[in-house]
């Protein structure tokens, strides 16, 4: 499944992809490919996102009405489906971010210096 190129990258923890998508959309509507690229670039190419895996997540979020979607035109004049954050999605993002920060802090505390070194 994975290729040479992506092997060294980190695999995403379950449930974190939703959070990342919501976070990415905070700066405005983006299409699927844009979201995928943004996650990769902001994480400085550390995170492995198989683009195809993005779509079930997008669909899930859309069904929960955290994001909405409509067809539009991209910067280079291509038709693309643009996703944007809804009010409910914004709330969810705050909730999930807080939770995530507490979780990572707790994990960092347990793993201690090793984690700091890493």
């Amino acid at each position, binding site marked *: *499944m994975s*290729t040479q*190129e992506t092997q060294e990258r980190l695999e995403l923890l379950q449930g974190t992809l939703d959070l990342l998508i919501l976070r990415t959309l905070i700066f405005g509507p983006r*299409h*699927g*490919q*844009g979201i*995928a*690229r943004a996650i990769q670039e902001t994480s400085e190419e550390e995170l492995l996102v*198989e*683009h*195809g*895996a993005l*779509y*079930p997540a997008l*669909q899930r979020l859309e*069904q*929960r*009405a955290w994001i909405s979607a409509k067809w539009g035109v*991209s910067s*280079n004049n*291509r*038709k*693309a*489906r643009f996703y944007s954050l809804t009010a409910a999605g914004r709330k969810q993002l705050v909730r999930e971010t807080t939770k995530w920060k507490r979780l990572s802090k707790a994990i960092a505390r347990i793993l201690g210096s090793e984690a700091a070194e890493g």
Partner: protein
Amino acid sequence: MFGRKRKLDDFTDEIEAHLQLEIERLREQGLNEEDARASARRTFGNVTRARETFYESGRWVSWDRFWQDLRFGLRMLRKTPGFTVMAIVTLGLGIGANTAIFSVVNALLLKNLPYAHPERMGTIYMRTTGPQASNERRNVDGEQWELLRAEVPSLLCAVSSMGTSGVNLQAGYQVQYLHAGRVSAHYFDVLGLQPVLGRNFSEDEDRPHGPKTAVLSYGLWRTTFGADRNVLGQAMLLKGEAYTIIGVLPQNATTPLNAELYTALQARPDGEGQGTNFEPIARLRDDATWQQANAEMNRALARSLRVQNFLKNNPGAERAYYLVPLQTSETNTLRPQVLALMLAAGFILLIACANLAGLTLVRMLRRTGEIATRLALGASPWQIQRQLWIENLLLALLGGAVGIEVGFLALRGLLLLLPEHFLPVATVPLDGRVLAFTLLLTLMTSILFGMLPAFTTRKVDLRSSIASRTVIGARTVRLRQALIAGEIALTVVLLAAAGLLIRTLIHLETMPPGFHPGGVITAKASLDEVRYHDPAAFRKLLDESLASMREIPGVENAALGLTLPYERALINGVFLRDGKESGQGVETNEVYVTPGYFETLQIAVVAGRAFTNADSPDTVEVVVVNQSLARRLFHGADPLGRYLKRDNKDVLIVGVVADTVLSSAGELHAGSAPLTSEETIYVPAAQMDAQFLLLVHSFFQPSWIVRTASPVEGLTAQMQRALAKADPNLPFSGFYDMKDLMAATLATQRMEVALLAAMASLALLLSAVGVFALVANMVVQKTREIGIRMALGSTVGQAMLQIGRSGVAASLLGVILGLVFSAWALRVMKGVLYGISVYDVPTMATVVLTLVLVTLLATILPILKIAKIDPANTLREE
């Protein structure tokens, strides 16, 4: 979840756009087209899988799953063919019974009568308040008819004779007996019927002594006139007179009379018009309202002598006439019976559902393991429920399909059972409405029988269910017993109702007839003929034909009477001439007879003498009364030698005869049984005057009666020949023995009995199946327990008792419930029971005994299996 689902195409477009955007980005980074494409695909991963994931979350899947559940359901049903067949047959019978009866309800009460704008057609009802209160459909007399015709501008009114009467039609050389109706002008206009050939009766043709014209039914035109389009204007010999054919009615045209041929009524205020002998029917004119019509009609009829005399003789009473839609009045008498049948059919469906609920419950419990496994593998409770409901629906639909077939056959049988023209509609179709009803019923049954098992499976406990093998708990058994008790209770009601009707029929059929019905054959002929308007010709015909019939070898006696026992008789009034009640009148049945009548029918002469040949037009007018009339008139005093006033002439009572049974259709006494022994006066045929003969022969066709000691070969042909010797142009309408006459009078009762008995038998069968299934199931479920008990020293008998008790207990509870329910519900039958009361002990005892026997049979058959249980084997099986 929100709004409509996305299409798969839209998603594919999005992925395509994604890939293109990625390719363009990579190209910008300097990759060539081919590498960019490959890299973009690589980064994306598996496109097909992404599409599949999308597809599965879409609505397509629910269809797929539905089909999957459906196929699974079918497989499950095929795996248990016994259950499936039983369920489908049970449902088919239940739904079929309902479909058949509902077709009748539909045709009678829901569909319009087969006339144009039937909602604007009405019949006349009369409401009387005061001591003689009544509220019923009424006919009018000649004067009232004239008032209706002249003074009610809101209505187009017409009248007809009451029913048809037999007449002789001679076309060419052939004479045939047929049923003719007499109708006024505009009768067919009121019905909205336009002849296919010719025209309707004109007002001129409807005047007394107007030209004699006739309108043919389509059937008669086809059979007797060979569908000849030139019949119009042709003359035919009807009742011995020339009538001109002026029209032919369309095919399948129905009228309330349903005659084969129609002549103009030519109503007069005197003679026939003195009595309420005309049946009115009206159509509301286009710009009129029912209120207007009622007001006008009420005002017009209030002026009639009949109403004024009534009000004079009954001070304080009030009388009002009003119109009732034809649909209502035509179906009024049948409505309670039809609705009662619908109720009975509903009971059957409930019983079928109760049975199925029990069976499905057991089936579901047997599948607890399967359900628990599916739950453990991640199926949601909703998925399990959906699966179960789909199976229920499947069963119901299959049952419904069988039900339509059964209903169709049952309806055909039912219509064969009905006497001709019993229903006021020509056809009883299985139309869209009936099919819709059946479908609705089917869906309802699936809910009714599926509810209980579905609720039970919602409480499946995963841990205990997967482990345990015995799934039938005490609670379930009690539930099933309650279902059985319920269905037995309904069966008791149906059986009791059928039983009461059967007892009524037996009572009516075994009423002491007052004569000897065996060895008698009768034949009717119409004497509504010009040549028999003369009493001398009439007497000559009787003398000659009866003499010829007495000469037939084997014939003991022959006679003639206007009507026969079991038949409806003419109603006439007689008055006391002397004594302190002088002048008081009594309505009575009246029959003219020839001297041999009492002897031929073997009616006992209790006092005085029968008529003799010496009673002629030239001698004193004599009458014979039956015992009921003698009692009514003289309260036990000797009637012989007393005089009565009949048709304003003094008549001498010379004899008293035993009461005979006769039809109460003449409505001498309201609400009497269809067969009664009412007051009857007999008058000698030879002393009847021309006016009387003319009148009665237009209503009644006299019967020739022949008694033989033993069956005579070719008797009917010889009777016809004997009649032909006296008059070659007089056909008999047919030959009947006394059983035929009784059957004709009791046709309604017989039909009610047949239908209700069929329904009750079906209910009994279904209940027996229910008890059988319960017990048989217990035996299977408890085989191991019984084995253990037997190993521990219990006997086979004890084990049988223990299991059998469940069925018997349920059944007994049902019987008790049913008796309580019957005591309350069957009171509505009071009006159709004769000779017995609603609380008829023999009937109830028979019902209880029947159910006890059936229950025992249904219990014993399955528990016999217990004897075959080998404790050692059962224990080893574990």
